[in-house]
């Protein structure tokens, strides 16, 4: 296939032939000679002192090779790092040992690691370890944890408040004084369990002689793993190779350093045997990070016409028992900079408290901070509309940042939106849903006593976080550029090395389309390589919907370096000057004389034989590029959800779902639609299905897929999609991002629809999850009144 434009072609994914025939290569599929299996014994108590660990019986069991406790690992590995420490937040990072040393602080905290000939033996032996615990008081909820007299997790973190973050812009107090309407609302964003279908795990193999650690692991960011692993184990980066090819979903839960990966690595080094550790699902539910878990108190100042002039937010984020790798950045920067959404709100103040509790740590989960912010601001828009008796679309339009105001700096000045046309997506969504007819249908339904609601979400998201200098200023412990290598081989085939690390988002296909657009090389001649730190230059991985906007741009720039060199070589072979040739569909020909041409393959071979190179041009066709965007990019859109609530069961059924998104230029519409579909389902599921529940003792009650409601095929209907295109001006292809858009948009859309459906019962707000049970209760209490 040779395309002249990299945009708009829904070619089938090149990743799929392997995956649909069972030939994928996930971490659990790695098999090495002499490989041992590791099981981690985890604390059944949410807070306890470890009095004694007796491993004698376990050690004597068949197949057991070694058992390590927390104390055994102290000299082998440093604590699990927290790599995003927002500045000016007075952050206190407590020490989190891969295996607990004296105290366990959540159900699932690692206590001992058993290494045995196979997994059955390892688990048997883990169960035979006798641990004596002295239980301590437990605190599960962030608001309880902050109270005086609450159980303390760490002496070094008074009142369990790990950080307090503040961001403001404008004059909030003045705004509240002049406002026609002010009100307060508490919004709860419940705790979620990411549930990537592949659990976390690792195979670590430390080679004697070369002193090299090879680590296969299921991560969204292999270079970050190598970087942090090196810091934690004192194995030089030059001796660590992280491999991560097929990844069974991430959703943010495979960003953080996992204690299990670190433990497997240092035990492999200690025993000089390959070690495999794979979580089972129950273990995944307690040992891999959770998401969300906010309580947000919002105060709103608005004018009679619906203009929101001031917003005060106090957020309490439950961080769990320790600060996970990227966790503090989520409720601080990622949450606060998108709090104003698509709206021009001149006065904003946000305070965020990150609170430690005896629960599994939270960290990024699809959207990470932005779903919390979007839920907040989209609920605020509906509340303003309700209180002023205005149409929710009218209030939104009244507050939209106008399309000619970009780049637009938010009130705090912390970030600037790149481009947008928010009316356009809303117009299209209203047209698709036939808004006037829909409201008539609702009137009719209400007259019949049915609970029928329409909800909107005119969201924005920030992705392609950048530039790296801003990342540094935000306290992010790394850069946010991305790397690419375009390596043309002598036969004209091309290998692309990219620092991103997809988990199903399809860059194996879309990046080939991008390169095809730049160099004209047929897609089938291009190999896209990720997930190997030995082959690929430093890159930061796949999260935050950044891969195409940042990694794809790096690829385009590297390709352009290749193209420029090919033009020089081609011109030389054609015996003209480089100014006299054009690069067209993969070949170089003399301007105005397309028959005087050198093919891609001819130039590639010439570059590598180097028999006849132009003056000053080095042999080879192998170019790399590190792309650091000058700014972030902000996809946006308008989602409309129509629900009908069955009064007898309390179930909110999605009748229609329309999504009009603007993710900039689109390379492969089929893949973009797929991202939107999956994202919408995940966001809807937060609203009506999913919730992680702890009891007061810190036991996770929703500890299996039996008890935690993941959406099924029958949960939601087909989604109706369309797009507008507003390119990003800050990268060469005008790309934005799409991985998280659906999730960010859909939660508020359906919650607004549910509240709208319930409004005849006098409801102005309803917290998530809007499960059938909770809705049924509300409906029946109202009836009782």
């Amino acid at each position, binding site marked *: 296939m040779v395309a002249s434009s990299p945009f708009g072609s829904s070619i089938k994914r090149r990743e799929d032939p392997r995956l649909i025939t069972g030939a994928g290569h996930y971490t659990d599929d790695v098999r090495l000679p002499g490989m041992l299996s590791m099981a981690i014994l*985890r604390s*059944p*108590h*949410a807070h306890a002192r470890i009095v004694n660990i007796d491993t004698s019986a376990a050690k004597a069991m068949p197949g057991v090779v070694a058992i390590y406790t927390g104390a055994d690992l102290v000299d082998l590995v440093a604590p699990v790092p927290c790599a995003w420490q927002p500045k000016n937040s007075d952050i206190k990072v407590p020490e989190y040992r891969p295996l607990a040393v004296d105290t366990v602080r959540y*159900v699932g905290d690692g206590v001992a690691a058993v290494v045995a000939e196979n997994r059955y033996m390892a688990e048997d032996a883990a*169960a*035979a370890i006798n641990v004596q615990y002295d239980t301590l008081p437990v605190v599960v909820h962030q608001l309880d944890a902050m109270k005086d007299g609450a159980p303390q997790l760490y002496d070094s973190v008074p009142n369990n408040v790990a950080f307090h973050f503040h961001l403001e812009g404008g004059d909030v107090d003045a705004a509240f004084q002049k406002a026609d309407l002010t009100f307060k609302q508490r919004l709860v964003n419940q705790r979620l369990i990411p549930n990537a279908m592949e659990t976390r795990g690792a195979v670590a193999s430390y080679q004697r002689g070369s002193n090299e650690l090879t680590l296969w692991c299921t991560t969204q960011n292999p270079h970050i793993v190598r970087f942090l692993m090196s810091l934690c184990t004192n194995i030089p980066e030059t001796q660590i190779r992280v491999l991560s090819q097929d990844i069974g979903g991430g959703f943010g839960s495979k960003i953080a350093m996992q204690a299990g990966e670190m433990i497997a690595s240092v035990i492999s080094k200690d025993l000089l045997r390959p070690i495999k550790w794979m979580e089972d699902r*129950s273990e995944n*539910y*307690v040992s891999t990070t959770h998401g969300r878990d906010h309580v947000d108190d919002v105060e709103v100042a608005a004018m009679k016409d619906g203009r929101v002039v001031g917003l005060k937010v106090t957020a309490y984020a439950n961080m769990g028992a320790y600060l996970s790798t990227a966790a503090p950045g989520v409720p601080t920067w990622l949450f606060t900079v998108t709090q104003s959404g698509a709206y021009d709100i001149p006065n904003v103040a946000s305070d965020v408290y990150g609170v430690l509790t005896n629960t599994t740590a939270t960290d990024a989960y699809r959207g990470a901070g932005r779903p919390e912010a979007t839920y907040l601001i989209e609920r605020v828009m509906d509340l303003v509309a309700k209180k002023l008796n205005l149409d929710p679309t009218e209030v939104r339009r009244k507050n939209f940042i106008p399309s000619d105001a970009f780049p637009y700096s938010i009130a705090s000045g912390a970030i600037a939106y790149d481009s947008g046309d928010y009316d356009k997506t809303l117009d299209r969504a209203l047209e698709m849903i036939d808004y006037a007819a829909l409201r008539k249908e609702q009137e009719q339904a209400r007259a019949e006593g049915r609970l029928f609601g329409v909800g909107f979400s005119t969201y924005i998201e920030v992705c392609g976080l950048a530039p790296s200098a801003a990342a540094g200023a935000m306290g992010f412990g790394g850069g946010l550029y991305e790397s690419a290598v375009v390596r043309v081989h002598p036969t004209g085939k091309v290998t692309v090395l990219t620092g991103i690390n997809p988990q199903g988002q399809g860059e194996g296909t879309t990046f080939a389309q991008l390169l095809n657009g730049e160099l004209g090389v047929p897609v089938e001649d291009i190999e896209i390589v990720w997930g190997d730190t030995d082959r690929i230059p430093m890159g930061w991985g796949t999260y935050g919907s950044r891969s195409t906007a940042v990694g794809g741009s790096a690829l385009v720039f590297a390709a352009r370096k290749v193209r420029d060199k090919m033009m020089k070589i081609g011109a030389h072979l054609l015996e003209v000057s480089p100014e006299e040739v054009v690069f067209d569909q993969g070949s170089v020909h003399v301007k105005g004389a397309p028959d005087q041409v050198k093919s891609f393959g001819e130039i590639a071979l010439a570059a590598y034989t180097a028999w006849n190179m132009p003056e000053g041009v080095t042999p080879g066709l192998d170019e790399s590029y590190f792309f650091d965007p000058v700014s972030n990019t902000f996809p946006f859109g308008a989602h409309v959800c129509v629900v009908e609530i069955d009064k007898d069961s309390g179930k909110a059924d999605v009748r229609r779902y329309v999504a009009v998104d603007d993710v900039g230029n689109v390379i492969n519409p089929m893949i973009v639609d797929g991202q939107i579909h999956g994202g919408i389902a995940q966001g809807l599921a937060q609203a009506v299905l999913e919730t992680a529940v702890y*009891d007061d*003792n810190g*036991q*996770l*009650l*929703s*500890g*299996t897929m*039996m*008890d935690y409601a993941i959406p099924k095929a029958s949960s939601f209907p087909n989604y109706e999609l369309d797009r507008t295109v507003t390119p990003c001006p800050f990268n060469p292809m005008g790309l934005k991002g799409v991985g998280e858009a659906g999730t960010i948009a859909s939660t508020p859309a359906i919650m607004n629809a549910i509240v709208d459906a319930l409004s005849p019962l006098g409801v102005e707000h309803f917290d998530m999850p809007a499960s059938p049970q909770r809705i049924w209760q509300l409906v029946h209490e109202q009836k009782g009144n």
Partner: protein
Amino acid sequence: MKITGKHTINAPRDQVWGRLIDPDSIAACLPGVETLDKVGDDEYSMAMNIGIGMVKGTYTGKVRLSNMNEPTDYQMYVEGSGRPGFIKGTGTVRLADGENSTTDIEYNGDVEVGGPVGAVAQRMLGGVANRMVGQFFGCVESKITGE
């Protein structure tokens, strides 16, 4: 996990009281008890075999009776741990005279399970706990009435 319930035993209160706090009755009537040995005043060590949902296993631990106000109320504390995890429960048992020399028993307590059993068995717990309590009182009753 809270458990509460009521049970009526067809026997007078003093007889019921005697049985409820008697280690031999506890050993005989609490389902799954394999051994029960006195280790202190109103305190016993115990081995118990319990199946919660799909997770069956043996738990060793202790039972303690306290705050005994004969013959009105007492508190019971049970804890056990084993390969499937741990179980811990505390509860208050109240006795009152019922009609026709029966005894009305009211119990309420809090049960916690943790560890592997906790992950898969939480939602079975209420049913299991209530069933065990029911079996216990039923057994106590049959011991008295069978005398």
